């Protein structure tokens, strides 16, 4: 039994890290966008499109690394749409984000059919390697969390990015280019959202599956809020979500009967709702989050 326990624990940790990776990358993307003052519910769509992009570019090049770049490329394009709509044209950021989410669903379904002539999923493509027992993307996610924190809290660039999300007019009067910083934040969320997608399609699997983001972009947003819009907070929050997703695997392994697996699959979503409703700790959004900035002349 003790050996079995060790195995189960190890399985649980590995499963948690795997489940955490896409959530963490997407949550980091959310942090950059919202710290700069742009609400980004488009993360779900960016992630889905990124997952498709990763598979597609890996498929045509035969290289998973090209696939990774492709995911970033597609992610930045999707985020770019959101950035232009919400920064340049002062669009309602929730509406723009929703449009992009719908666009991503349609686009990936269409391309799945168009390129591979099949619904459901793509053929197998080259995937990213494991380093030791874990996939490359898992290491990348945690390294990027630390890099993000340093960038946001230890560099002038980060201070300026945050100032633009709190009080853009104040930043403007100090000569900080509000629009430039906001574009930077949103486009970075495209990079990270794209990477999150790649971790799904060519990291944890080796194919694109229709609708494979499955709400993870929204869970990542909840984790971002739970983590108080801080990259390290996002690490803690996404680990919690990752763990709750992995529980179902463990309970099955341990042979515990009577609790339907759907219950465990439900857990992360229930947790998300509780967090968004403010039951689990209070966290305060950047003051100008979601408010378009208009310049007077």
């Amino acid at each position, binding site marked *: 039994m003790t050996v079995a326990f060790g195995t189960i624990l190890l399985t649980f940790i590995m499963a948690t890290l795997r489940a955490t990776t896409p959530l963490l990358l997407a949550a980091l993307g959310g942090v950059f966008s919202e710290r700069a003052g742009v609400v980004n519910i488009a993360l779900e769509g960016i992630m889905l499109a990124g997952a498709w992009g990763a598979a597609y570019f890996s498929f045509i090049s035969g290289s998973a690394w090209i696939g990774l770049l492709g995911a970033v490329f597609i992610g930045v394009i999707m985020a770019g749409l959101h950035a232009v709509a919400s920064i340049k044209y002062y669009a309602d950021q929730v509406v723009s984000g929703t449009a992009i989410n719908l666009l991503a669903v349609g686009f990936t379904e269409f391309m799945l059919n168009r390129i591979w002539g099949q619904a459901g999923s793509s053929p197998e493509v080259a995937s990213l390697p494991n380093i030791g027992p874990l996939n490359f993307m898992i290491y990348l996610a945690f390294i990027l969390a630390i890099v993000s924190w340093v960038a946001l809290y*230890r560099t002038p660039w980060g201070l300026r990015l945050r*100032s633009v999300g709190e*009080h853009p007019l104040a930043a403007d*009067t100090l000569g*900080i280019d509000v629009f430039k910083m906001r574009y930077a934040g949103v486009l970075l969320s495209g990079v990270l959202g794209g990477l999150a997608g790649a971790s799904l399609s060519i990291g944890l699997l080796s194919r694109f599956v229709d609708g494979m983001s499955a709400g993870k972009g929204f869970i990542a947003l909840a984790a971002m809020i739970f983590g108080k819009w801080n990259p390290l907070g996002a690490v803690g929050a996404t680990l919690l979500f990752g763990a709750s997703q992995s529980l179902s695997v463990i309970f099955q392994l341990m042979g515990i009967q009577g609790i339907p697996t759907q219950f465990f699959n439900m857990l992360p979503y229930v947790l998300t709702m509780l967090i968004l409703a403010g039951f689990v700790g209070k966290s*305060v959004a950047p*003051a100008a989050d979601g408010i378009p900035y208009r310049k007077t002349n």
Partner: protein
Amino acid sequence: MGLRSHPLPITMLLKLEGITKRFGSLVANDHIDLEIRQGEIHALLGENGAGKSTLMNILYGLYTPDEGRIFWKGKEVKIRNPRHAIDLGIGMVHQHFMLIPVFTVAENITLGKEVTRNRFLDMNEARKRVEELSQRFGLEVNPDDRIESISVGQQQRVEILKALYRGAELLILDEPTAVLTPQEVEELGKIMKRLVAQGHTIIIITHKLKEVLHLADRVTVIRRGKKIATLDAAGQTEAELARLMVGRDVILTVDKEPAKPGKVVLEVKNLHAKNDRGVEAVRDVSFTVRAGEIVGIAGVDGNGQSELIACLTGLRKPTSGTVTVNGQDVTGQSPRRIRDAGVGHIPEDRQKRGLVLNFTVAENAALGDHRAFARRGWLSYQRMVDKAKEIISGFDVRPPRHDYLARSLSGGNQQKVIVGREILRNPDLMIAVQPTRGLDVGAIEFIHRNLVSERDAGRAILLVSLELDEIMNLADRILVMYKGQIVAEVPGHEATEEGLGLLMMGGSASA
């Protein structure tokens, strides 16, 4: 300040020539000339909307002028944006502070011009520089405090330090005393003198006459976008400055007959109430207001006045005691019941409580009395418009448009809409809280005259104000509130500024 000598020959730091700025059909600045001397405190005086802030925003690079030239230290410059202004040595402290509440003092001061080591933030060094600056100019701040946790006076010091940190030689202070307590104003005066002594030049934008006389060396008066005059502040009087600013003689004191108090309208007995933090803020307050008199409540902000008024208007439930209006017990009743009992309320914050800014003037005219504007349950816009027109003509609201959003009116005109709405309801008791805060002399005069004529028409008026001048001008009886209690009652004609000041600080009148 008039006594300060100029040991050096007068040099011109800044010269504006024929500056013109139009917004659509409105000419905000009409060929304004202005000269600022090195080392002076120059006041820019004008009513709200006269064009002072527009002019300064042009100087700070926020607006581009349509016509005119700017000379900085003798050289013509075109100021493209705030960054350019900062680089030239122009710093601005905006009326609404440009500070980030969740950032620390040091972060706010260095933002945009951060202290770095190897491209990373060096907050230790930043802290040190802020401390140095703060000592050099006697502007006490703690670099590690978050802005949201410090007082407004301290926030203003941070704003000034922000400009000094960027090497500002000319400081523009936009309505710097609007948000300060009298003690903080005093302190600001000292700071300004210290800055000038160290070679800086200051422009203050203001509509307060006392400030000009108290702080400035010279004053430029602007009216409706045009420059009226530039004068030495020494030797000027408030009356003369007011005349220049408004364009006609202004009566700064209110002429009124002695009050003829009638029956008791408001009676407050042994009232107790708590504040938002659950601490007792109103302690055993009892007083009456009779028909035909104005009772003023004086006190330093935060001594329970807001909580007392909230109890009287139904916005807060007292913990004990009674409130009676016209003999009817309204203790703890809803605002609607209290309004129906004959109470009008001019609230302290006109934008948060007095108006719905995104409603038109007509919709605002109906606020609080919607049932009177309905026919069989349906709102009658015609009635609302009629009421709005009545307010607009009776209370001189400009522009005279019932279909404009309240947001688009100036502060004075917003206040006129509220005062008009409340007066036209014919309340027996009018509760007016800070009715002239932030208004210019013209609007103040107008509102004061209206309150006095309401008194003469037999209404009971309860006036709460932080401005002693206002209380002394209007009130027939003055109640002084200190730490939640009424500590003294003074007849209006016997009150002096010194005497009330002492009582407000918890002293006794004989001291």
